[in-house]
């Protein structure tokens, strides 16, 4: 049994808590949050041991593992403290607001041989796993270009009341939404060499960004375009889609299906033929012991727990890997803040946002 604690009871925290509480190999030893209201409710109705102070929880409950689901600006200090107490850590994304912090924590976790994982759940989605597999065996030949998209209906009006609407606190489209497709690009192609033409703008938000567009270039690899907008009401919920163009075909994958167009004879690829092929989540996704919102949420926590229990240090979604994503986001932020080339004579920086 793995003795596990959780800190942070927001939307993700509650979801993780629900999933982990019924994991057969987990003994829940502590739940921590700054909100007395939520803590009392959880304590009273679930029987879980609650703590309003994080350090006190580490001292008293002595967990072997910790799930961190606090606002992003607290990730660095909480994860550091946990690692110093020799606790394995699962941390929500984005990992740290400064990628050098991310790297430092990755090194610390590595030096102590601790399991470390970041909540990039799309790596546990079967359709993207299939896309990765196909790319690795060069099913579509040499990939020349990739389009990484994420859209959703998160911010549809000018309201901003929580940490999510504050850029410095890790809020905004870049950290919250764009991190996911960027992470998938990292997974498929590694760390890019450069970024360019980055646009990070507000649409409705007062204090932070709602859309992110830009070019990402991989050395000896494809070019990629990122297109992210969380102010799109036409999407019922967050939708991530990755398209890859290769010399031998094209792959388009989202959470439900993986569509593959193959030009030549696909005789090396079992189950695939020339032309269009589609694989659906119904056939690709492995069942989980408990389902809440998606198999991937359970699968990623199961991976974390089983890694600890079996002393497996493969660390899919490790801190080091997440640090790559943090680094790319930082590069994009810097690129967006730099000046552009205008058709006219005057130089200008970010375009003014039109407020209605």
């Amino acid at each position: 049994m793995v003795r596990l604690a959780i800190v942070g009871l927001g939307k993700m925290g509650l979801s993780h808590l629900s999933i982990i509480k019924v994991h057969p190999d987990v003994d829940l030893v502590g739940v921590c949050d700054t909100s007395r209201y939520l803590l009392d409710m959880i304590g009273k109705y679930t029987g879980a041991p609650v703590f309003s102070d994080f350090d006190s929880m580490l001292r008293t409950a002595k967990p072997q593992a910790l799930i961190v689901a606090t606002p992003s600006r607290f990730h660095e200090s909480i994860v550091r403290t946990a690692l110093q107490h020799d606790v394995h850590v699962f941390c929500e994304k984005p990992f740290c607001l400064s990628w050098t912090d991310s790297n430092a924590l990755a090194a610390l976790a590595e030096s102590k041989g601790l399991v470390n994982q970041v909540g990039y759940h799309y790596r546990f989605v079967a359709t993207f796993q299939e896309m990765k597999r196909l790319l690795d065996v060069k099913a579509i030949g040499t990939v020349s270009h990739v389009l990484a998209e994420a859209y959703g209906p998160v911010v549809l009006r000018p309201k901003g009341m929580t940490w999510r609407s504050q850029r410095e606190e890790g809020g905004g489209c870049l950290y919250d939404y764009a991190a996911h497709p960027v992470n998938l690009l990292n997974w498929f192609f590694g760390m890019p060499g450069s970024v360019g033409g980055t646009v990070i703008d507000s649409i409705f938000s007062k204090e932070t960004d709602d859309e992110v567009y830009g070019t990402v270039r991989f050395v000896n690899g494809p070019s990629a375009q990122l297109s992210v907008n969380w102010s799109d009401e036409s999407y019922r919920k967050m939708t991530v889609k990755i398209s890859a163009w290769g010399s031998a075909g094209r792959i388009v994958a989202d959470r439900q299906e993986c569509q593959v167009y193959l030009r030549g004879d696909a005789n090396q690829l079992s189950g695939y033929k020339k032309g269009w092929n589609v694989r659906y989540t119904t056939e690709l996704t492995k069942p989980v012991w408990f389902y809440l919102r998606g198999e991937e949420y359970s699968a990623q926590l199961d991976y974390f727990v089983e890694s600890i229990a079996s002393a497996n240090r493969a660390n899919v979604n490790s801190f080091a890997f997440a640090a790559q994503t943090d680094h790319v986001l930082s590069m994009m932020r810097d690129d967006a803040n730099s000046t552009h080339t205008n058709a006219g004579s005057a130089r200008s920086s970010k375009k003014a946002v039109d407020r209605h």
Partner: protein
Amino acid sequence: MDKLLFGDNQFFGINHMSEEKARAQAMRFQDLKAVIDVLDIAYEEGIRTFMCTTHNRVEAICDHVRANQSRYPDYQFYPCMPYAHKYADTATEVGVIGLIKRFTPQDGIISAAIRGGMSFATKDIEGITTLLIDSEMKMFHGLKTPVIFLQNVVVDLLLGLGMKQAFKIFADHVRSRYNAEPGWITMNMPMLLDVLDEIGIENPIVCSNINKIGFRMCGGVEAYGRALRDRKFRAVAMSVFASGAIPADEAVSWVCEQPNIESIVFGASSRSHIRNTKELVDAKWHPALDRL
């Protein structure tokens, strides 16, 4: 409950197998008329129960049925609440506490408790829960709602957290305020049955995925089979076609072979699909299962 219940996923761009299919459906059913036309077709085929979420657009459907009571004398709704995305997006925007504040009255005990950061008694949980239920049920006033379901995102969240009391509060309020049977939608049927047993909810109505390929049947096909065989509950089967992954004939044959299934909820958007499903179910429904 009727053998066949009509679902609403196709009207709101929901297809768990394919986003592309989902979008095509969303486009097709943007107009209320397109939705009503399909509901009318289902009604003509003898399907008089609409098992729907509390999506904002359902309100227009309710208005239509209310305004045309003589056309739909025996029509009934099985509301499934809450429509999760409404709340999830709000939580992202204003936080979990902000969410609770938005859906509860501005004054009163709850607001004070949050502001004061004090702990509070059971009554307030009941208060919030019953307020949310009533808010979700507003659109169905004047319509028949003999069964009221709690949606799987909420059921399974509470199930994992172990907040069993919330199920009792839901059941009690649905019975007392709406004179209806409570129902539960879940992806984790065997686990839910254990908890409902524990809190003394007898012979519950439980809607869960029941299909040949075991798609989203947490616990496994065998555990579901055992539960259907051995436990006392009223099963509603959903996702019998696994969102289109199983051919209709095969899907219906398999489901009808399972013991103790009282109803099947399905979605379709054409007369031929609706009629085909009805004919398949009529043909393959095992006489021994028919308790009506």
